[in-house]
Each structure stands twice: as C-alpha cells, then as structure tokens.
C-alpha cells in the first residue's frame, strides 16, 4: 500500500476517492448518451495509459499502437466467432498475440538500435502491413469486416461480455482503474526507475549497468499486452472490426492524443487528457450543430488541441497538479 499511496498528499487521496466514487455511481444519474461518451473517455484513458507506459515511462515512441489493440481485438473475436471461446479465456490469447507482435517490433527496433522517430516509423510500418494482411484473410472477414453476433440483451452476460452498455462501462472503468494501479506500482518499482533512466539518458543508463534491451523489451511487452486487453473490450463492445479502421495510423494517433494533451510521462495525464478531449469533441459537435456548420468541429477541435500543446507543452496534468498542490516528484519523474 505504501508503494501505491506513499507520498500522495491526503487531499490528493481524497480527490481521487471522490472521482472514483463519482465514476462508480455515474451510470445511475446520467443519460445513456452521456454514458456512451464516458465509455469512450475511459477507453481512451485506458489505452492512453498503455501507450504512456512505453513512451512516457520508458521513452520508446510508438505511433502504431492501434496494431496491438487491433491484434487483441481480432484474436479474441476470431476465437469467439470460430470456436465459441469467450472473452475471458480469449483475453489470454489476445494478450499473448499482442505481446508476441510487440516483442517482434521491439526486438527488431532494439536489437538493431533503431531509435526515436525511426522506431516510431517501424511501429507504423507493422501496423500498416498488418492492416494489409488482415485485408486478405477471409477467415477474419477481410475487407468486408468481421462481425461478432449481436443480440438484444436486457440481461447482463458477463461471461460472454454480452449485455447492456452499463456492463461495458463498469468493465472499462475497472480496466482503467487497474491500469492506473499497475502504472503506479511499476513507476515506483526498480523497473520503473530503470525505464525512467533509459528515457532520460540511454547512454548514461547503460553506463551504470541498466540492461537496455531487456528493460525496453519489458516495456513494449507490458504496453502491448495492456493494449491487447483493450482490443478485447473494443471487439465485444462495438461488435465489428474493419482492418482499415482498426489498424490505421489515424486510429493510433486518436489513441495517443489524450495522453499528449494530458501529459506524457505522468500518471494521470492519459486520464485527464481523455476526460478533456472527448467531451470537448462532443461539446464542439453540439455547437456546430447549433450553428449548422458541419465539419467545422474538426477545425476548432484542432485549434483547441494546438492551443493546449502550444501553451502547456508538458501537458495539462503537471500544470493542474501544481495548482492542486499535489506532489509532482512522485508522479512520472517529476515533470513540471
């Protein structure tokens, strides 16, 4: 517990408890529309944390993270459709598949010292060619899409992850909470310190005996595995997968934007970013509908994001946590 909550001021813990409580009881007070928006928020918060672990903690830039989500999604969906294997078993295969492909990308990158933007290009390349490969696999629906059977269920079938959106809300909320705990524990562990050392100065880290290849590989494996879990949830919530919309670079960017806005390398940045960007998008949609200006949303949304990145280049969380008087030294390496 001390590793989890140590160093967090009391009022920080209180705020966290209040936020958690609000999120737990929210479905009883909000409309289904707001609930569906909250689900998207939590999904981005979860995947943002998975990505943040790789770039924010270990300093390895991935711009093809949709690959790991997509591999997890297709694996679990294929097991469910073709073999009747439910998501709770399928998730192990999905994580294994995502970790495997993440390890291949990582091995190629780290073994041959591909760094920075070149490593990012490698992740994009893998995502794109996976897109093309899945396009040609009829067993996975090919370009025509892969559809999970859907039925109108009033009841909750947690075993097969079939049911109302309230159920999906609590599942993604639990995943987001678990990812937060995991990230906190990892960040405060020896492994987390190694990652931060690699992130800050790879050569110096190596000079003091940090095994670069091993720890980078662990970061990629955990990040891709977490993303694979997100893929399982995604497949069973949306019930349809298309290669183009699952693996595209645009999708990868969508997944990471919240973290960039919230604060890369911080613990709460991905969550804050998701809670800002998705509702901001909905608000702008509402405003553009009011003024009957289709498409103008993207313009203003881009302006807002550019403004945030321009005026708070480290993301919003370091600034907000400063305002709230929370201890930053224990949050992702003390980014200002």
């Amino acid at each position, binding site marked *: 517990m001390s590793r989890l909550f140590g160093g967090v001021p009391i009022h920080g813990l209180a705020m966290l408890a209040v936020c958690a409580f609000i999120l737990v009881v929210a479905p009883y007070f909000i*409309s289904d529309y707001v609930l569906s928006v909250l689900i998207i928020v939590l999904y981005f918060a979860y995947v943002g944390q998975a990505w943040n672990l790789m770039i924010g903690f270990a300093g390895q830039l991935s711009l093809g993270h949709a690959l790991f989500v997509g591999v997890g999604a297709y694996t679990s969906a294929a097991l469910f459709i073709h073999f009747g294997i439910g998501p709770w078993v399928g998730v192990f295969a999905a994580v294994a598949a995502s970790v495997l492909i993440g390890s291949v990308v990582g091995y190629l990158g780290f073994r041959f010292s591909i760094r920075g933007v070149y490593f990012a290009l490698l992740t994009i390349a893998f995502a794109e060619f996976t897109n093309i490969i899945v396009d040609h696999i009829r067993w996975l629906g*090919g370009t025509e899409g892969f559809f999970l059977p859907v039925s109108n269920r009033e009841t909750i079938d947690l075993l097969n992850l079939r049911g109302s*959106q309230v159920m999906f809300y609590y599942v993604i909320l639990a995943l987001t909470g678990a990812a937060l705990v995991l990230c906190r524990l990892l960040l405060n562990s020896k492994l987390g310190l190694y990652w931060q050392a690699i992130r800050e100065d790879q050569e110096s880290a190596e000079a003091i005996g940090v095994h670069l290849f091993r720890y980078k590989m662990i970061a990629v494996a955990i990040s891709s595995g977490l993303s694979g879990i997100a893929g399982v949830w995604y497949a069973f919530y949306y*019930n*349809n997968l298309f290669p183009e919309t699952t693996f595209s670079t645009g999708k990868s960017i969508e997944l990471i934007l919240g973290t960039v806005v919230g604060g890369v390398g911080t613990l709460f940045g991905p969550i804050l970013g998701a809670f800002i960007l998705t509702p901001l998008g909905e608000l702008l949609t509402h405003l553009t509908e009011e003024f009957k200006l289709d*498409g103008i949303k993207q313009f203003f949304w881009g302006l807002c994001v550019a403004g945030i990145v321009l005026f708070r280049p480290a993301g919003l969380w370091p600034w907000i946590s400063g305002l709230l008087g929370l201890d930053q030294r224990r949050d992702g390496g003390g980014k200002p």
Partner: protein
Amino acid sequence: MSRNLHKRPARAGSRISRRTFTAGVGAVGLLAGTAPFNILRAQGGALKVGVLLPRSGVQAGIGQDCQRGVEIAPGIFKDLGLPNLTIMNGDTESNPQIARAQAEKLINEGAQLLVGAFDSGQTTTIAQVAEQKGIPFVINIAAAPPITEQGYKFVFRNFPTAPTILGDAFANQKEVFESGGSAPKSVAFLHVNDTFGTAMQKGIDAVMPKFNMPYKIADTISYDPKARDLSVEVAKAKATGAEALLVVSRLNDAILLTRELVKQRWSPMAVLSMGPGWYEDQYLKTLGKLSDGPLSFVPWYDPNKKLSKQLEAALKKAHPDVNLNTNHIYTFEALLVAADAFKRAGSADPRALADAIRKTNITENVSTGPGIQFNEKGQNDKLKNSAIQNRDGKLVTVAPKAASNAKAEWPMKPYDKRG
C-alpha cells in the same frame, strides 16, 4: 444533465424512472413533470427522425450528398399525402465510435426512428444502439451482408448487399452486350488497392465464374488511390491487348485514367465500372465530352417510375447542377419508409412503427425493382441494380430493360472522334 432527462423518448421512461428513484425524490418530480409531455408529443406531433450521416471526416462529401435526399423529401411527402417528419441531424464524423454516441444522443433527445449511415462500420454500431433501445433504424446505404443477419427486430435495410450488387452487375453487363450485338473477349481489370477496391476485386473474382461471362480478365492491375500518375498502369493494360476496361475506382483516379486513355490514344470498346467515380458529377464536369461513354453498374433508380420523375424535378429545383444519384435515392427512400410506416401505424410508438415497417409494401418508389418490402431479416431482397451510361453530361439508364430509358451507346465512341 436534467436537460438530457427532459429529452429522453417516452419508451425509455421506465429506465429513467428506476435511475431517478435512486437519484432522489427531486429528480423523480422533475421526470414526472416532463415525461407526460414527451409522450403527448410523441403520439400527436410529427415523427422525429434522427438522420445519422458522415457529415464531416473522410466521408463528408458523401454524407452531405445524402443530405440532399433529406432536404428534398418534405415537399414530395406532402404531395404524396404522407405525414410530416421532424428531422434531427447527427454527424457520425465518419467514425463508428462517434456514430454510436450520436445515435445515443439523438435517441436521448427524442428521436423515434433512426436513418443512416452510409458506411457499414458506422451502421453496425448504430444498429446495436437502435436494437437495444427498441428504436426502428432504417438503413439508407450499407452493403455488408452481416448487418441484417444478426436477428435484429428493429433494423431494416433498403439497400442491396454486396453480393447482390456484384451479381446484378454481371447480369446487366450481359444484357448490355446482348443489346449492343457484341461483347469484349478480354478485359484489363484496373482497381484501387484500398479497402473498397480490394473487397471488390475479391468479390469479382468469386462471383464472375458463376455468370459465364463472354470475356476473360487479361490482367489485374492495382494502384494506389492517391496516385498522381497512372500512365504506367494504363500502358500495362493497353499492352495486354484487352478490348475493354473493367474498373473499380474512386473519383480522382477515374479522371486520371480517362486522361491517360486519351493521351495514350487508346479507346477501348467499353469502360465497365463496378464502383463510384465514373458517373459522378465532378467527373462529368471535369472531363466534358471525354466523360461520355463509360458504363457504371450501381444501385440506382428506375427513371420511368412516377416518383423518380418527381424526385428528379425536386432535386433539379433545389440543386440545378446535381444529377440524381444513389446517395439521394436511398436516403430519400429510407425517409419514405419512415413516413409510410408512421402513417400506417398512426403512432410514433417504436414497436408500432417497427411492426408497420415490417409490413411495408411500397410499389410507387424510386429505386430499381418491384418496390420496397422487407423480408423476415429486415432486408429488402427484391432490389435490383442498374447499368447507367454517361451521355452529354447526363446519366441514362440502359439496363435492366424494364427500368431503362435509353439504349446503350455501344461500343463506346472513340476519344479522338468526339470533336
């Protein structure tokens, strides 16, 4: 939040009540004060139809084109004696995730029936919401077969599935060859290598053998939809000695291919298009006389039907430079299904509406085929596709014969003999 509760449809009232009880007496009072108003409005006023289209994002142009079908509907419905509809617009932003949230939003704001959403991925996510809420959803355009294979009770599709589109395309080609008195012995198959193009290429490979076509595919050549130069692809196709071109294109590459055909002095017997691009307004405007001749095999309308003429006239009045096309037709017909069902049901109750839609039998419609009826899966399986040809900046229908208004110009007039 209370605003959203105010606007919830009457059907969802029971669920709100449960939640509101847990929220407290004050909220119950608020709900009790507003719910009866919702019910009265639902039963007595115009049917509130949520129209979900990709109005922004990569499919924005198509979504906005579909919207034209929405805009011209009220005047025609009035002439037909159909009830008025209150349209609530929703933008899916060409994104399935947003599509789902927007469907929730529209239902939350009182939509009693949904229409949309052009794209299969977006349509699937909306269908799930509609089914869970018990709100009828009439699909305007989406061709993926699984959408109506899920056992849905509230989802209806008045658009042909991908296998039907392909099958009808080959049948119509044979009809054109027969009426023209000759057929190409070989074709070069050029297609974009994006998701749509690849899916079509696979579909063509699978379906074509069943139709015993008179031609062989001499070569299959794929290209990037963003290509700026298609000279190599056209030269390669020309070198096969094929008599005609079979194409699956988008707009920009259709224009590029035509220009390249002219430059390389190759006038094939026919350009047989199995997708968009070659019949689009921008293609006709950009290429002028060079745009004449290509045949496109698409879900279309029967120009001889009375309602088609009305729709054409209404579109011409509203948008003089726009030719009636698939997007307008099927979006309009989705609303036609809604208005017809609302009239027969005499109620905006979603279950009554769904029952009425299931019994739809519209014979005075626009699209090619005997009319609009839905099978037990909610699919109109009687729809037919057409062959259309560009002629003097307009589009004429050349097959099937029962739904045609012109005979195909066959073979295509050579590019160097067009003045």
